[in-house]
């Protein structure tokens, strides 16, 4: 109930004013939203690309963090959405970002602020690589992002 109220308020605000590079794709229910984000500067890794984020909200949002990950739409469709290359983004779309863990989360964060954090995380990156052990993780992981214990070691992003 709390989550629904808060999300409908956020949605109203977002529909009034969207930050640059962020668009709402799907927000018809209050459990799963999809947003498209772009990197605004001229970082060659992400130029001319649009990425899709999937937000899954629990009933305890905003006290609990939402589950956020990139989803991939095949390049064959008319709106291809790849998974951005980044040393903290696995190729299945799971993001290693302390803001999204229950330890780093704060209830004052919003969908908008998460999108902007991820935008800046991409902007600041110059390394064209996946996290170490990506293929292993991608082929073995069946857990949901919230159940994974990430080790947040990199303070530079």
């Amino acid at each position, binding site marked *: 109930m709390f989550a629904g*109220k808060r999300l409908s308020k956020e949605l109203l605000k977002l529909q009034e004013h969207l930050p640059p590079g962020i668009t709402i794709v799907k927000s018809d229910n209050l459990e799963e939203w999809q947003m498209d984000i772009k990197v605004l500067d001229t970082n060659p890794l992400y130029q001319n690309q649009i990425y899709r984020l999937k937000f899954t909200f629990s009933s305890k949002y905003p*006290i609990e963090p939402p589950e956020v990950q990139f989803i991939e739409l095949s390049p064959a469709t008319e709106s291809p959405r790849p998974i951005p290359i980044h040393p903290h983004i696995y190729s299945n779309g799971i993001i290693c970002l302390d803001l999204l863990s*229950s330890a780093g989360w704060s209830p004052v964060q919003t969908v908008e602020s998460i999108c902007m954090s991820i935008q800046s995380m991409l902007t600041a990156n110059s390394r064209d690589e996946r996290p170490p052990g990506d293929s292993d993780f991608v082929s073995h992981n069946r857990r949901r992002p919230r159940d994974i214990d990430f080790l947040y070691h990199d303070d530079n992003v």
Partner: protein
Amino acid sequence: MASITLEELLAMETACDRDEIVDLRSLETVSNYDDHLMCPICRCPFVRPVRLQCDHVFCQKCLNSAITALAASRDDFTCPTCRTPTRGFYLNVPRLLVNMCDDIRVRCPFRDEGCSEIVPRGHVQSHVDKYCGYRLVDCPDNSCSKKTRKKDLSPEGRCLHELHRCLRCDDYIMEQDYEEHVKELCPSLKTNCPDCQTSVFRKALREHIDTCPEVIHPCAASKYGCPVKVKRAELMTHEKICPLIAMGPYFEAQNARLDSLELTIRHLQQRNEIFEDGIANIRSTLVQSSRALTEDDGPPSDVHTLPTSNPDIPRRRDSSNNQSQIDSSNLYTATTTNYLLSLHESLREEVGQLSHAITDLDARASMAIMNECLRLKEDMAHTNAAVGSMRMQVQWLMNPRLHQGQRTGARPNNAAGGNGTPAASASGPSTAAGPSTAFLRPRRLSDSGREGTKL
């Protein structure tokens, strides 16, 4: 400063929650309010705000849920906004802030029931409590579980949820809604048709509009472009003279023809695609066979044809389940076989030619080898002869020396006395064995003497 601890704050909430009827967060605000009046957790104007040590303000309830959910131990609770570790909470937020929040205009929460009142948020509680006639309250009859609007409560405390039968429409209506039903909603009430002004039953209005002679109705040929719209009564006269109506059947027939032609075209397109597939298939077979031939001949010079022919192969496989495709490919297989047979013949000829060439080459090679052998033999004979003559010369040159050596060797032997005879007799057979050894041995013996100077 009146600072309270975290435990006290948590205990306060349960006490405050009880006397709250209206959920202030779900109220619909009418006036715009500043974003700074909004709790960052629930995104509503602050409800009973609390201030932290770091001067950040939250609703008390939001802060409580954040504390219970986030802080692993109560000691390390940090401000949700700035993450400053926090122990003290202050309830005395500036009066200004509370007043501004309470001054925001909201709609009465019972708007759906009919209350159109807009009041400041601080007064909503008392409005609902005392003045709002639309507030839902429990039915005074204890056996009835329904709710009723406060203004509809009967003074005698009777239950108004009893069903009454409407005399006109035979429906059952609750007593509290009866008056409204009879006045406005009952389907048996008469109403006036907006076009012809005749009065009809409310429930029959829809049927009436379908047949009302006064309703404006478009011409039946409007889909062919007739712009005329007249009252239904006049429509008949128009349709008699409308040229498009007369053309109607013709248009229909043309449309049907177009449809069937389009269908035929689609069929033909499909057939065409099948044939094209077949041709591509044959072409790929040819490319493959010619490649096989060139590979037989020698090093494949046409490797670059490989990628171009490859895409044809899966296409052939795709279409092979098509019946007509198979027919056409059968037809082509015969010609392909012929072609392959002729290629085979020419290849056989080439192989024959090659084997001829090889035997020829073989014969030539053996002739050359033989010639070379003869020449070598001759050379060797010459060399042999040369070696023989050289030996003869050496022998001839050696002979005088040999004789000289024998002579000088005999002289000291004789001078040495009687014991020199066995030595001379011993050297006798050795001279028979080889002239050089026989010559050297006595010479070495005489080396110590004046023999060297003599030479």
